[in-house]
């Protein structure tokens, strides 16, 4: 499965469009990470625990989107977009969406 965030797959021809596919996940932080992040907050800088948490969630959202696309028979997703929104205190939703296409 090829993913791009532009209107085409460079070097390949698109033969069929399948429309929008999406994948999302809502994750809450867990206590241990929150505590470590609270300590790290004093000196500032990167909060590695949160970086990893969000990376895992984004990978999960992407794989759900890819699963939806392959169910349709697509072999690429173009124009992929990511958005993040916080749905509740301490929880955020990560959404990945794009257009499923069939390429040569």
């Amino acid at each position, binding site marked *: 499965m090829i993913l791009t965030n532009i209107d085409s797959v460079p070097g390949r021809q698109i033969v069929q469009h399948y429309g929008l596919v999406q994948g999302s996940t809502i994750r809450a932080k867990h206590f241990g990470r929150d505590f470590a992040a609270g300590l790290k907050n004093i000196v500032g*800088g990167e909060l590695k625990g949160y970086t990893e948490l969000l990376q895992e969630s984004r990978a999960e959202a992407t794989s759900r989107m890819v699963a939806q696309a392959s169910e349709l028979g697509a072999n690429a997703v173009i124009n992929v977009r990511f958005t993040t929104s916080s749905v509740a205190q301490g929880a955020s939703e990560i959404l990945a969406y794009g257009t499923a296409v069939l390429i040569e």
Partner: protein
Amino acid sequence: MDSVELWISLGIPVVLIVVGKFVGASLERSHYRSIIEREARFRARPAISTKELDAPVPIQSASLAVGSVVVSVDHFKRFLSGFRMIFGGEIRSYSSLIDRARREAVLRMKESQPGADAFLNTRLETSTISSTAGNEGTGTIEVLAYGTAVHYDRRP
């Protein structure tokens, strides 16, 4: 007894601010050094915000590259920004934090695809991470950089 409590309640925030100032500033300097060094290494593999290359080069393969980072401000900067909120104007202490985060995210995106020749349609997205500790959450942001990594076709 009351004076001991007063000292503790005043002392802890002051200690946190002082620790934040010195440790935070030294972490920031070392982070900037690392960013500048790595940016120099990736200069030949540009991240561009347009969808196509200026000179049409045959492209062999394309894939999505993603990089992200979560950063927070230190207690000293948080304290300074509290003053700034009274008078208004630019909060410089936050500008440097967000600048570091964006550059770090772009570098991670590039590092995730070490062999790529260029990154097309690079997008930067910033979002605020809320915290259960109420106001403590202000100043924690996530920056996400993503783009299409392309490999040029070098076959003759």
